[in-house]
Structures are given as structure tokens and as C-alpha cells.
């Protein structure tokens, strides 16, 4: 794979294999309007120059704090949001710029699971109607097979058969998330963006839903983008993780080496700020000082410079490039040259 000068697509496999989905130099700016003429007075730089690739069957995690652009990125990938610039390829085929008609067959292959499925499920439809709507629209199965397909879906996500005739509000949080998963699976997608799918759930329910998603991932060979602010969950669930800060990727590495290999001071700070559930391992949490810069006006240098314990002069002047420091492990930091 050729690498662009601005940022290499991190950790694409060495082989010539085409990744399932690939993003190159994605940018998303949200205009802020104001004044008497309602002109664009500023831009929120939500995502800046993000490139990555996900292999077929791989789960890529995205972590970062609120406002770092992780959800925007997820929505751009399945074109719920239009990127301001950059390219998205599915199995090598460019999908930015495709019109609605052309997107239809691709939409079906890509689905999203939200943090709060309640707000994404029509409250006036029963589960059967909800699922049927999507299945019929995309013609996934014929009319005769519809009922048995719905039964099968409901069983797959571990809901009881009688759930079919209930409304979304009749379910508990965990069951509702199962419903959100069933809705996403109904179209037999190959790629799923899961945006904080377990963040709103109690721990015991969180474990149930994570296990279900793992089962499905294996059985159906799903490729996933898993967005979360919880490093422990990402570490457990994902193959690789992309760490974002203020719209940029600062580091990408494999999850099984996260704690040992994390290079970037921000990744290290995230790890250190995460409370460990072992009273014998009680150490002071890493506390960062300094303020998060505004995405309206990102600083000229590294966005993390204002809070970084290892900051150097160069960090305030120049954005560090995302460079391969070790095989398959790019990070963007001047201090760790």
C-alpha cells in the first residue's frame, strides 16, 4: 500500500490483501453560523486527517474522551454524515460521492448500533413491525420466509419469542440493546459500527451484551468498529485500538499489547486514569492538569500539548505526524521520538 505524506494508513496488513473498509485522510468540519448574514463564522474541527483500515473479520476499537470525534468518525464511515474531505473505500471501492441509489446495496452491508437504542427504535411499532420494515425494504427475505426469519433473529439475540409482539418501551435497557442488535443484524450486514453499545448498561447486563456481540462476531464473521470511552471494555473486546484526541488519531496499536506498548503520553494518561478494580493495586490515578483546547480553534501544534506531562517546545509549534514507531504501531508524538 502506498502511504500518503500526511498520514500513513496505520497497520494495514503487510500482504496485498484489500482491507474490508479503509478510510483515508478523513476530515469533518461542522460550520458554525452567526452574525446578521448567517455566515459561517467558524468551523468545529471534529475529525482531522484520519486514516485507518479494518481487515475483514477484525474489530477496531476507537477510544477517546467526549468531543474527540469518535462518533462523528463512525457515522461518516457508513455515510450517516458526509465527510468534508477524504475517501472511504469498501473492499477497494470508493463510496464517498455515491448517490442514494448507488448507496442502497452498500447501506445494507453496513449497520450501526447506538448507545441508546430506545431513541433509534420507533416507539409506535412492535418488534415484529420494526424488524419487518427494514427486512422488507431491503428485500432480505421473501414474504413467506419473513415470520421465521424474525423468529430466528429474536432467538439469535437471546430474546424470548413473545418479544415479537411487544413495544420497545416494554423492554429493560439490556433487552432493548439486544433489540438494537437484532435490528442491525436483520439486514445480514458484514460491517457494524457499534457506538458505545454497552455504556448505558449495568455491569452484569454489560457483560451479557458484550458476550452476545462476541458470539455474533464469530458466528457471522462480522467486521466491526467499536466506539467506546471505556478502555477496559475496548481492551477486552477489540483486536486493535485507535486512540483519538481532539479529532486526530494519536496512536494505534493491538489491544493485547495495549498496557505494555502504549507510547503516546495521552494513551498512557488514559490508562493511568482508569481505576483498577483491585484494592491491592491501589495507586494514585494519573491526574492531568491543563485545559482541553477548543475544537473551534485547535492549537497550531499537538492538541495534547496543553495537558501533556512530557511537552517540549516543538509540540506547541508543529503537529506531530502519525508515524510508524514499531511495526503496526503508529503514534503521533514529538516527545517520544
Amino acid at each position, binding site marked *: 500500500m502506498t502511504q500518503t505524506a500526511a498520514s500513513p494508513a496505520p497497520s494495514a496488513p503487510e500482504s496485498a490483501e484489500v482491507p474490508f473498509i479503509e478510510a483515508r485522510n478523513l476530515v469533518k468540519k461542522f460550520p458554525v453560523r452567526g452574525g446578521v448574514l448567517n455566515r459561517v463564522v467558524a468551523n468545529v474541527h471534529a475529525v482531522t486527517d484520519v486514516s485507518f483500515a479494518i481487515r475483514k473479520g477484525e474489530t477496531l476499537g476507537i477510544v477517546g474522551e467526549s468531543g474527540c470525534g469518535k462518533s462523528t468518525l463512525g457515522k461518516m464511515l457508513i455515510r450517516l454524515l458526509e465527510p468534508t474531505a477524504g475517501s472511504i473505500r469498501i473492499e477497494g471501492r470508493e463510496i464517498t460521492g455515491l448517490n442514494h441509489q448507488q448507496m442502497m446495496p452498500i447501506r445494507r452491508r453496513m449497520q450501526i448500533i447506538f448507545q441508546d437504542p430506545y431513541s433509534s427504535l420507533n416507539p409506535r411499532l412492535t418488534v415484529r413491525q420494526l424488524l419487518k420494515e427494514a427486512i422488507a425494504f431491503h428485500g432480505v427475505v421473501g414474504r413467506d420466509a419473513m415470520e421465521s426469519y424474525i423468529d430466528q433473529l429474536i432467538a439469535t439475540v437471546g430474546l424470548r419469542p413473545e418479544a415479537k409482539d411487544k413495544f420497545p418501551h416494554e423492554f429493560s435497557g439490556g433487552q432493548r440493546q439486544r433489540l438494537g442488535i437484532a435490528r442491525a443484524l436483520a439486514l445480514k450486514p458484514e460491517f457494524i459500527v457499534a457506538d458505545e453499545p454497552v455504556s448505558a448498561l449495568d*455491569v452484569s*447486563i454489560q457483560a451479557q451484551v458484550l458476550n452476545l456481540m462476541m458470539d455474533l462476531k464469530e458466528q457471522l464473521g462480522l467486521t466491526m468498529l467499536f466506539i467506546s470511552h471505556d478502555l*477496559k471494555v475496548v481492551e477486552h473486546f477489540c483486536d486493535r485500538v485507535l486512540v483519538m484526541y481532539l479529532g486526530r488519531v494519536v496512536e494505534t496499536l493491538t489491544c493485547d499489547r495495549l*498496557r505494555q506498548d502504549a507510547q503516546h503520553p495521552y494513551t498512557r494518561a488514559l490508562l493511568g486514569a*482508569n481505576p483498577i*478494580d*483491585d*484494592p491491592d493495586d*491501589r495507586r494514585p490515578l494519573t491526574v492531568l492538569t491543563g485545559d482541553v483546547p477548543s475544537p473551534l480553534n485547535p492549537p497550531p501544534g499537538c492538541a495534547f500539548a496543553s495537558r501533556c506531562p512530557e511537552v517540549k517546545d516543538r509540540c506547541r509549534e508543529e503537529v506531530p505526524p502519525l508515524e510508524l514507531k514499531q511495526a503496526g504501531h503508529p503514534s503521533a508524538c514529538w516527545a517520544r521520538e
Partner: protein
Amino acid sequence: MIAGDRKPVLEVRGLTTRFRTDRGIVTAVDDVNFDVYPGETIGIVGESGCGKTVTSKTIMRLLPEQNSIIDPSSQILFGGTNLATASESQMRRVRGDKIAMIFQEPMTSLNPVFTVGWQLDEALRYHTKLSKKQRLERSIEMLRLVEIPNPEQRVKEYPHQLSGGMRQRVMIAIALCCEPDILIADEPTTALDVTIQAQILALMDDLRKKLNTAILLITHDLGVVATVCDRIIVMYAGRVIEQAPVRDLFKRPQHPYTKALLESIPKAGNKEHGKRLPTIKGIVPSLFELPAGCRFQDRCEFKQQRCIDEEPRLEPKAQGDHPVRCHFPLNQDVDLTVSQSSP
């Protein structure tokens, strides 16, 4: 830490709170007992609906009187007064002065139409005899204490001008400006990012040491509990089911629910990577349809006939054990480690 000669600052005895609902009366908190000693941090953990928030709101008497009933036998002993039966004017002297509370979402507890300074001043106006000038000085000092940069400027700002972490720090400043004996923190960091959470937890701990405030921390996050608490109370379906010093609870959980809860969180480090997490089957029983015996019975893998017939009492099973509400507690003799999480 809990020496025999130290007196608890708060004693909760037989705390029972019911709600009137369309479906009848429901008992949200059922016979909860605990003591709070000065300068200690107690964690109350449990899943949604277990009664942890109702417990704290009952102590503060913040539940709406139309539909909540505090059982007359409940005792909340604080400084010689039973808060369970105290009048509203008595409560007003306690609230914010002696016992302060911070909530999960500071934006809903800060008043959007008044400045930060005004809201700090309000607490001082009610509870102290300081002059206006002294109160302003104290407000600025409090903001500085919670590490808000440029406090002279910030007192003039409104809540919407602050970030989420800063709002929570303002809440803490308001809560602590009268140097309360007890700070009740209900999920204070749940809505915050981990880096901000770390700041808030460190701040609360500093202030606890400086002012010897006891902290009652209500949370569902076991990592937070393991990091800051001295003692832990585990609640399930309105009942306290286990109560122990933090290390004891994590290393030797005796209630099957506690053990399962601890196991169901993903562990730091890579050992468990890609494996299935141990889960607790089923869901929390509805408070309207509580079983006669143990409330955890339907989800418990060790259930026996006795668990169906008879609800266990909260008591230590052997000398030196911590109290547990289970007929057949685990880890009675072995020092079974819960996690070997370090890489």
C-alpha cells in the same frame, strides 16, 4: 481505621423507604443499617434500582413527601437528632451545612440563571454569619481549593460557561464551603471522562483529608470503589446483601451476587482478551414481585431449597467475617483471589 473509641458521625438504623405508585406501595429500601465514621469513604454499590440513591436521598430527606414514606421505625441519627423524623426547618439547617450532597449531573443541580458566585454565596448566606465581603473571599477561596483556574473571574460566570468537569468542581465547592461532616456523592463522576473523573476523585480525597469529611460515595463503578473507598456496602433489590472493608470484599466476596458482579467487569491487562465474560443470568427482580426467600435466588447458581423458603439475615457467618445476607456464603475458609489482573 474504625477504632472502638471513635464515634460514628452518622448512624443509620432500620432505614426503610416506600413509594406510593399506581401499582400499589413498593418498598425501595428495606431495613438498611450502617455507620459512617469521620474521615472515611464508604462506597454504596449496586445496579440500577437497587436502592442506593433512595438511601442517600432519604438521609437528606430529599424525596417528595406526596409519594414517599419513610417507615416510622427508621432512624437516621446525626448529632443527636433523628433525621428520619426531623422537621423541614431542622433539615434545612443540616442540609448543605452539616451534610452536603453532589449529584451525577451538575447542570441540573446548578441554577442556570445565577452566577457561580451567587450560588456559592447562597450556601454561606444561609449557614454562616460572614459579611458580604468575607463571603466573596470565601467563595473565591473555595473555587481555588477545587482547582478552578482564575477563580476571581469564574465567580462572575454562569454554569453554562463552564465545562462538565468544572461544573462538578463548582458543585463540590458549594457542597464543601460550609465544611460539612458528611459529603454524599451520588455517581459524581459517571457522566465525566476518565481523565476528569481522576481529577474529581483526587480532589474529593484531598478535601476529605484536609477537612476530615466523611464521604458516602454512591456508584456502580467497582473500579472507582476499589480505588477510593475504605468500606463497601453492596445493595441488591432494596437490601444490603454484603458489607465489608474494601480489600476483604474484593478478595473474599461471600455473597454470590458480589462475586458475580466483580467477575463480570472486563479486567485490565490482556489475560482475558477475547474471552467471554462471566455473566449473571436473568435480571433484577421487580420490587413488586419480590420472592419470599432470598431476593437473588432466581439468578443464583448455588440456590437451594432454604433460599426459596427463608430470606437470609445480614450477619457474619463466622468469627471475624464481614456481614453477608446469604445462607450459603462463599469463600468461608479459602483466601480466593478475585482477580489476578496485573500483567
